[in-house]
């Protein structure tokens, strides 16, 4: 049973009749002159070679309506807001590297390779975008080794969806190449999470393109579609033509620049007075929650006080609960009374007031009045058939009985007092 290679291939082809990609012969690798024309440089280390592209931007360089320098002005506090996480005052803007990778597929798993790792960072009054390019799989170690060396000088990573995509993939590549790097040591700010918190309510879509269009005010021209990126690397491997990758590294560079602008923008969003356009797109309730989580109560309450005019019901409710928890009933009652004065039926506010009057102020008639109003509103909603899944009719009835009992009891007491 001696089978020649061609016979086996013939056999395999008979199973798979689809026209699969023909494999073109490879061209010679580009000369160093070609490379430098493209802004690329070949680096050889003991493990192999890779291509590096470095672009420097002055600090006053503008992108998406912001100067890069604005990022350097961010305080540790602002980073805390962005990431909803407390950072130490020693944290500086320069401690972060912006990271974005391009890959051979979106499926994930150990067969997905990173072929471009773009890193953006500030140093000596300039912003550098350094992009490492994998020239061939056998050079993956050399490629990752350079990425690892660069990452060593930073404390934090800023990414867009890096928590679930870029970093796990990078970890996988490191493990497969037996390269040690403890990714847990990094502070990781994933701007996608922050964008969703702040803008999803108003923008719906939080992909980079939509944020650029709606908040940074630009639309990319001639940008490569994400789905076409893996194909470019395949074509490059087949032909050796580096130019084929230029749309990819341009795309990657813009991704990194936009991340800088988004970080600046997100920080600004926490100071609503600063920029009305951003304020209009930002979900105030999310800001409130971040402030509360970071125990910045003054900032949180100030923001909430201003939100009466926006009439953000959920934010006001959150605010009232926070006030109640801290024993500030005067202000809380003010919020609840504001809410029950509205035309829409905000039941939790009624409930809080009913509880307040019954248990705290012990003005049972006021409590009864609230309960009656609730029951009337529920009846109307019921008749209109819009009551939906409203629960708790029994609870309200129960509450009413109890309040009525308390009223009659105190009336008795009063009458006994009178006769005595």
């Amino acid at each position: 049973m001696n089978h020649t290679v061609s016979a086996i291939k013939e056999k395999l082809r008979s199973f798979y009749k689809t026209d699969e990609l023909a494999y073109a012969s490879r061209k010679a690798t580009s000369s160093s002159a070609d490379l430098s024309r493209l802004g690329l440089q070949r680096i050889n280390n003991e493990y192999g070679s890779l291509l590096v592209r470095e672009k420097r931007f002055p600090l006053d360089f503008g992108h998406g309506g912001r100067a890069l320098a604005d990022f350097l002005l961010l305080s540790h506090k602002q980073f805390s807001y962005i990431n909803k996480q407390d950072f130490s005052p020693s944290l500086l803007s320069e401690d972060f590297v912006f990271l974005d990778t391009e890959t051979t597929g979106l499926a994930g798993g150990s067969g997905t390779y990173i072929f471009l790792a773009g890193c953006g960072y500030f140093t000596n009054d300039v912003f550098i975008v350094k992009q490492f390019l994998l020239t061939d799989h056998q050079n993956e170690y050399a490629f990752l080794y350079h990425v690892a060396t660069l990452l060593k000088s930073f404390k934090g990573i800023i990414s867009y969806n890096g928590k679930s995509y870029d970093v796990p993939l990078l970890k996988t590549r490191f493990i497969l190449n037996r390269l040690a790097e403890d990714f847990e040591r990094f502070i990781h700010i994933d701007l996608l999470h922050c964008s969703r918190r702040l803008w999803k309510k108003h923008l719906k879509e939080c992909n980079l393109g939509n944020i650029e269009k709606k908040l940074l005010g630009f639309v990319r021209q001639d940008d490569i579609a994400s789905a076409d990126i893996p194909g470019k690397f395949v074509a490059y491997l087949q032909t050796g033509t580096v130019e084929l990758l230029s749309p990819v590294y341009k795309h990657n560079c813009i991704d990194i620049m936009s991340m800088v602008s988004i970080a600046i923008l997100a920080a600004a969003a926490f100071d609503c007075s600063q920029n009305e356009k951003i304020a209009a797109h930002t979900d105030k309730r999310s800001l409130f929650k971040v402030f509360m989580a970071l125990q910045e109560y003054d900032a949180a309450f100030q923001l909430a006080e201003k939100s009466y005019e926006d009439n953000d019901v959920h934010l006001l409710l959150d605010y009232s609960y926070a006030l109640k928890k801290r024993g500030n009933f005067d202000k809380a009652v003010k919020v609840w009374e504001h809410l029950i004065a509205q035309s829409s039926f905000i039941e939790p506010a009624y409930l809080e007031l009913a509880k307040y009057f019954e248990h705290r102020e012990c003005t049972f008639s006021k409590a009864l009045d609230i309960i009656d109003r609730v029951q009337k509103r529920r009846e109307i909603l019921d008749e209109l058939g819009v009551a939906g899944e409203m629960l708790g009719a029994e609870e309200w009835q129960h509450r009413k009985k109890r309040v009525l009992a308390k009223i009659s009891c105190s009336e008795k007491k009063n009458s006994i007092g009178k006769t005595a």
Partner: protein
Amino acid sequence: MKLTLEQIIDRLRRNEAFMSCVTAWQEIPAKDPEYAEFPAQLDERLLTALHKHGIHKLYTHQAKAIDQALNKKDSVIVTPTASGKTLCYNIPILHSVIQTQESRALYLFPTKALAQDQVHELQRIIELFSETIPFSIKSYTFDGDTPVSARKAIKSSGHIVVTNPDMLHTGILPHHTQWVKLFENLHYVVIDEIHHYRGIFGSHVANVLRRLKRVCQFYGSRPTFICCSATIANPAELAEQLTGESVTLIDKSGAPHGKKHFIFYNPPVVNKELGIRRSYIKETQRIAADFVANDVQTIVFARSRMNVEILLTYLKDTMRRLGKPAIKIRGYRGGYLPLERREIEKGLRDGLIMGVVSTNALELGIDIGQLQISIIAGYPGTISSTLQQSGRAGRRQETSLSIFVSSSSPLDQYIVNNPHYFFEKSPESGIIDKDNLLALLSHIKCAAFELPFAADERFGSNFTGSSGLDSTQEILLYLEESGVLHRSGDKWHWMAETYPAESINLRSAAEENVVIIDKTKPQEKVIGEIDLFAAQLMVHDEAIYLHEGKQYYVDKLDWQRRQAYVHGVQVDHYTDAQLKSDLKVLEVFQSTDTENDFTRGYGEVVVTSVATMYKKVKFQTHENIGWGKIHLPELELHTMAFWYAFPPNIHQIMQLNKEELGDGLKGIAHLFKNIVPLFIMGDRNDIAVLPMVRSPFSEKPSVYIWEQYPGGIGLSKKLFHSFDNIIAAAHDALETCACSAGCPSCVGPQLEVGEKSKKVAQSLLQIMKSN
């Protein structure tokens, strides 16, 4: 007055009508337990916990299995039902975890339900250690139902991860970097119920295990394999094929059992001319009713959900007639939760439950305790399943009874009439071909996705396949040419954007499947998937498709979109599609070639087939009650085939005309189709048989048996080497069939195969036997 089991047995023996239907009555003598000490190196804390659990000594097979595992020797344990199989692997593995907290183990079960059942059992044992060891042993199932939120903890801290081969294939191996802790410290891999891993499923699983070993090697671990199997002819061979390691066979059980009576019962013939017998379901009802009426705990196994319902209704009625609560009879089907099972188990112990009627879901190792009588209504398909079902009866030292009630299907009739095949050594072999070209190609893709291939790497160490490939390199070259792999330096790397495991189904051969969609309810539901070759036969327009014992009518087969739309029905017939096939031999792998003699051979063939029409056939009587046309395109199948050829002048030797010879060949083809599965542990759909009065290849009268899977899975080779057994079995089947001149149970219905078929087939088989 109620009778004891012994009295019932006695009464059966004196019942002439009953005895006239009995074709075999075997008495299997009681066996005393054989005990052995715990291996000396077992951890003290483990022993303390086991004592607390009431386990003070081991059966001999357990001790041997534990000893092998502790000494890192790969093994396969062949265990009868209720012989304490799980301790064979749980003890050494718990020992390993107690001693080295980092130690990890992976358990593979063929189904999710079994995996979940096993974790419940494990957790009960682990609880015993809560006081004696300073850390908690964590065992988890990991399958499609595992919530995403729980996965991270399982990956990093699960000591024992219990899963199925499909999940290992699509969910774990392609993401092995997330399982570093597991793979770096993987000491044991348990593969339970390996007799399920046969045929194409087994061929795939063997390749998944090759991938597992490759990943382990990357992380520097070498797990010990512990396999468990039901009784089959070749457990060690199968385990070695699956794991790629040589294994120790442990098949001498030390567990005790009481005396067992095993009866084969063939319902009486009611129409001799057509070979029609009384309904086996009705016979089962009658027999079982007598037992439950006497409060003897009985389990009845039926082949389909529908039959379970019929039997259940009837037995409940019987109870009511006798003035007993119907609740004493319970149904049991797949998908019952552990809690419900515990309840049935408790009911049986307390005597609140007298009868359980079950589909074969119970045969799969799930434990509901032991009963006194088991009745098997219809042959479950394999000897090992039959043994497992029969093993449900018989507790400790008490006498038990098993009755096999035969249906009229050819395989059932063969078994009931030839009981020695059953009671002597099992002829069923679990056969796989892990070097099936398509399986190999699929898994080399997956393996390349997981880790790049070294230029001189061989996929699997003992690489000698029936596909004729002797090197991994050819496949890698082919994949490079197709743009799937990229060679860089001395390695082949995955280059496609896709995730290969996703499109490879371990339980089917073809890459393309037809999805079956149930439209009975407004909410459509996918109930299954079958490959194209099976689809043309089973889900053509107007076919009756059987799925988990339920009948479905096929409203439309959309060939272009690979979808079949069905709705649930209840009818008294099934459909049998006729395939017009043509076969061309491409290459002869082995042959006993002599010019004018009886020859046999096997090799590679291409089969073109097109489904042309279907018959509607009535259950029980096999009566033809209608037919219809099928309009589907022709399919081409590259596979392996076995052939048997007669001398060109055989009709002269035997004084037959060509037509008679043709009818005889049709008859033996029908017999082979039904009997071959008995030897390959498969079902009738694994093979196809084609009789030819003059084969264009050999120019001789021939019978071809080909494998219904692209590339073949090793069945033809097996047939080539053991065809004598099949000739003998076919001959026995003909001799013992009660019909006068052919029936569906032997050569096929007379209307189709001709009146002389049985006679000619008999003499052909006779001459085959002596050649």
